[in-house]
Each structure stands twice: as C-alpha cells, then as structure tokens.
C-alpha cells in the first residue's frame, strides 16, 4: 500500500465524522488555556494539534474517571440486579508513545487472575492513534524505561510528523490496518515531507538511570531516610496519579436513592491521605512521604515482581503537573546514584 498521510484539516474532519456516531466514543486533543487535554469529543469540541504533550494521559479513555460496575433496584422483596450497557467502541487520537505503551502494562493487571472485563473489553474495542513525539522537555525519560519517541507499543496507528500541518500514518496492528482502510478517504492528504521533521531523535532523550538498579535499591531501602527527602514537598493530592498513564488505583462506591442504585468504580490514588485509612482510624501509610514511597515502589519494584515490567512509561506528566515541585526524574536519578554508590 502506498504511504498514507493525514493533515490537520482531514484529521479534524475525520474525528468530527466519528463523533457523529453515538455508538462510538472518540477522544482527542482539546486546548484549554495554555494546555492541551485528551478529552472526550463532541460536535463542538475544538481540536488542537499544536501541542507538545497533553496534561492528562489517554488512560481516561480506557479507565474512565468513574464507571458503573453494577446497577440494582431495591424493593420490598429484595434486590434485582440490572444489566449494564455494553462497552462502546472507542477511538483515541493524539496520545504519545508514552501513553500507548501503558496499555499492555495495564492489561497485565486487569487480566491478572480475575478479569476486569470493563477494561479488557475497552482495550479490545479501542483504536489507538498515537502521534510520535517531535518535541521533548526536561521531564521526559521514556528511553530509560524502554520506550522511545517513536515507540509503537500499544498503538494501532502511529502518526509521524512530516511537516507543520500533517503526519505520515503507519498501521501497527491489524485493528490499525483496518482503521486506515476504512478511513482511507481521510488518510489521503497530499503532503510533502519537509526537512527538519521529526525534530527529535531517540538519542536526544538519553537513558539516565538503570531501572534494575532502582528496583534493587528499593527492595533494600524501605527504611531509608532518603524517602522522607523525596516526599518532603508532597502535599498528598492525586494530580500526579490522575494524569499518570499507568496509575490505576480505584475506589468502589454506591450511589443510591431509596429504590435504585449504582455501584461505581472511581479513580482513587495511593497519594491521598484517606486511601488506606481503616474504619478504626489506623492508617498504615499516614504520612505523605510514605504514600509517595508507595507510589514509586509500586511502579519500580512491586509491579516488576508481579508482572515483570516497570509500571512507568517515562512520560514525565507527574512532574509537570506537580506544583509542589516533586520531580520523579530527579528522584530516580538520585536513587540510581545511590544504588551505584552503594554498589548494590
């Protein structure tokens, strides 16, 4: 097949077209203030393609902020469970490789023994159209965790910028191939690749730590005073975890009137003070640095024990969003240094 290109206008048209179909959910980049967000699109959404990286990750599309997992009716004789609406197919446009590479990671968890079909079903039905990076900032570190600006993992279609207003499309998966085929009328832009694109190469993002060393250090240094230093600035909000492509913790709550109710899975975060607090008042992780330690350890140690992989894609979103100045890359580099120093 000949090379396929899509430009801004065609992309807008395509996404606009897809949004018309109420049977599918479409996510794409929308500008708000100075920032761009991956948002669920509707007819009025104003798309924007000139962004370096979205504030949030595409996680939101596959693991909704809240999602019903049970519906029921209450009556005098008991309770009746009701069917849930089926998961809709999705198209997610505009994530970065560090977004898409989170999906296989997350799948491992939701597929672990008990299968969370809500996530898995969406994963089956989603088309991930990733835009390869052609910019970076000081918070990016995908290469240190096995990624790259043009990493294909998790994507169905990868778009690579060829000029200021368009991309070259590449199908990665079967799903992606079909999508390109079905939407070939949008992927037929006549674009001439311009010089200077892509602006960055893999080598621009150097590997700055060794995640194996970090794991070993974490395993042996649970009580290290450094954790207090790492978490010193943390104010215990959930901004970092909510924008993170791989943070997946959730809460389950019921909302009910007298007669009917819905049980919902909601985002929750290990950094929030109440996360592990028992009804008795006991809290195993009562201090903010302990919670921050859990976050890092989970990603760089526990997850590897369970699923053999670091649960971080190096997107740097957590550092960008943290206004208290907690910077994950600084911390990982420091751990790396400590580990090297300690010889472990």
């Amino acid at each position, binding site marked *: 097949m000949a090379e396929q290109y899509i430009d801004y206008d065609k992309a807008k048209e395509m996404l606009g077209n897809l949004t018309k179909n109420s049977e599918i959910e479409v996510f794409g980049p929308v500008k*708000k*203030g*100075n*920032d761009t*967000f991956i*948002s669920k699109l509707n007819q009025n959404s104003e798309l924007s393609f000139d962004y370096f990286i979205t*504030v*949030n990750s595409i996680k939101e599309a596959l693991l909704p*902020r*809240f999602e019903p997992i049970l519906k029921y009716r209450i009556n005098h004789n008991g309770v009746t469970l009701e069917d849930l609406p089926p998961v809709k197919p999705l198209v997610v446009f505009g994530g970065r490789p560090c977004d898409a590479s989170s999906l296989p990671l997350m799948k491992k968890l939701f597929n672990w023994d008990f299968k969370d079909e809500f996530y898995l079903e969406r994963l089956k039905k989603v088309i991930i159209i990733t835009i390869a990076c052609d910019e970076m900032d*000081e918070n990016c570190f995908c290469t240190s965790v096995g990624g790259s600006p043009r990493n294909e993992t998790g994507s169905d279609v990868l778009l690579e910028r060829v000029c200021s207003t368009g991309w070259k499309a590449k199908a990665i998966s079967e799903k992606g191939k079909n999508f390109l085929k079905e939407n070939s009328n949008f992927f037929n832009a006549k674009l001439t690749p311009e010089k200077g694109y892509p602006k960055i190469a893999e080598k621009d993002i150097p590997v700055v730590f060794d995640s194996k060393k970090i794991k070993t250090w974490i395993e042996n240094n649970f009580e290290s005073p450094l954790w207090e230093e790492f978490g*010193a*600035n943390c*104010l*215990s*909000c*959930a*901004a970092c*975890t*909510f*924008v993170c492509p791989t943070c997946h913790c959730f*809460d389950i*709550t019921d*909302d009910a009137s007298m007669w009917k109710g819905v049980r*919902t899975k*909601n*985002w929750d*975060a290990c950094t*929030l003070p*109440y996360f592990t607090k028992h009804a008795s008042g006991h809290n195993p992780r*009562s*201090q*903010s640095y302990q919670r921050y330690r859990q976050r890092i350890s989970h990603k760089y140690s526990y997850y590897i024990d369970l699923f053999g992989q670091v649960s971080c894609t190096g997107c740097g979103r957590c550092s960008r*969003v943290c*206004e*208290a*100045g907690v*910077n994950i890359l600084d911390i990982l580099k420091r751990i790396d240094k400590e580990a090297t120093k300690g010889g472990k």
Partner: protein
Amino acid sequence: MKELIAKAKELLMNKEVDLLIGYQSAGEKKAKPLLIKNPDDADKLVFNEYCLSNLVTYLNRPDIKALSKVAVVAKGCDIRAIVVLLSENQLVREKIFIIGMTCDHVMSPDGTEENIKCSYCKVRNPHLADVVIGAPIDERISKETVVRHEDIEEFNKKTKEEKWNFWKEELSQCIRCYACRQVCPLCYCERCIVDFNNPQWIDTRSNPRGNFAWNIVRALHLSGRCIDCGECERVCPANIPLMLLNRSLQEEAKDKFDWEAGFDPEAQPPLTTFRKEDDEEFIR
C-alpha cells in the same frame, strides 16, 4: 537573598527551629518549595518573583505540626493564611518563626504576566513577621480600599444561563484529584467532608453532580476565610478558574460583613458571628 540565607543558617545552626521551609530554584523562572533541617542546605534558598507557592500550607502537615518550632519564608499574602490559621486555633504563634519577605509581585512561570492576585495586594510589606527581609515597598492599595475584582465584574456580565453553562463545562473537567484542597493552607481538616460517608454529603465520583457539590462545599468552607493566595487555581491540573468563586465570596464578605480575612488574628471569623443588622433583603 544573602540576608535570607544568613538568617536561615542562624536559625538552623542555633537550633532555634527544627525545620525551615523556603524556596529553591526549579530551573529558569521557576521556584519550588524547599524543606530543610540542615544549615548547610540553606545555600539552596532563593527568593524571587517566581516564588509563587504559599508555603504556609506545609505548616498543617501532621509531621511538621509535631515539630517544636518551624521557620517559614512567607510573603505578605502568605502570612494572611497564618493569620487565619492562628485565629482558628491551628497554629501556635510561638511555634513558628515567620521570615517575612517584602514582595512587589510574583510572576506566573511563563514569566511575563504579573500574577492576578498581586494587583489587589495590600500586604507588600509583610505583617506579623518575626523578621522582615527585603527593602520596604510602597503599598499600592491601602488597607481600607474596597477591592473590586475585574474578573468578577467581567464574569457577572454573563446571564444566568451563560454562567451555568460556563461552570457546567468547567466543573465537568474536575478530576477530583483534590490538589486544590491539599494545597490550600486553610484546608486542614483531619477528615474532609468529602471523605465523610455517613451520610455521603458529596458524591465522590467525578461526575458533574459530584463535581458541583465538591466545588460548592469547598467554596463555602472557604467563604470568609479565603485569603486570595490563588494556590488552588494555580495547581488545578484541569485549569479550572476556581478563584472566580472564591473571589466573589470575598467580595460578598467585604460588602456584607465588612470583612477581609488574614489581617487580624484576634477578630472573630465572619461566619461564626453576626450582626443583628446584617443584610436580609433577600429574605421574604
């Protein structure tokens, strides 16, 4: 800066304080909080117009509260938070050492615009401080001036429907990360009302209903208390203009109760008192 570092070293060296909270550089035109216990670390301290954070919020953290004395670098606007915390029995004045910094204005990180709160600032020279560092600065607004916020004026030109649609759109983007709560120096509850589930006052789902309830209760709990530091809006990852609500309630407190929070630790907070002649035109 030299003066600040010297003072910090002195405090830490003489063990006058266990911890000092100040700012450090976080790259060009950026600063971030610095919590230090060791006098040697004092060299990292900076103070410039990019020192946006209100460090007073750290004073509420349980591990910091447990210390016997803590020094905090604070601008006049930040000290207003200390005043409120003192009046609400959350701090013991003797346990904090306030390093007041004179400050003309701060800048948003892109480095061009003066932060909006600074145009209403009445405390360029810090009050209540144990030591004031920096040359005195002319106050551009006197304490008596009744501030009219331009953003509120502009917003209030909208019709009901426009306002409703505006907030519906904005608040539907709230992801309930509670960054606004956690960064707020005045949100110090041991258990936030949103974590209270019997009854469940506020839907914890980040659906529009829950988001409305959450933002309403937050604004209400800050009414008559908010000191206009703007931290909630600054940290909001969804860029929701939270200060629109807080500022309008500040105006209301000023208009109806002649009250501005954060100046007098002895004064009775307005929602815990009343005047018999309070406005009741709206009551039938």
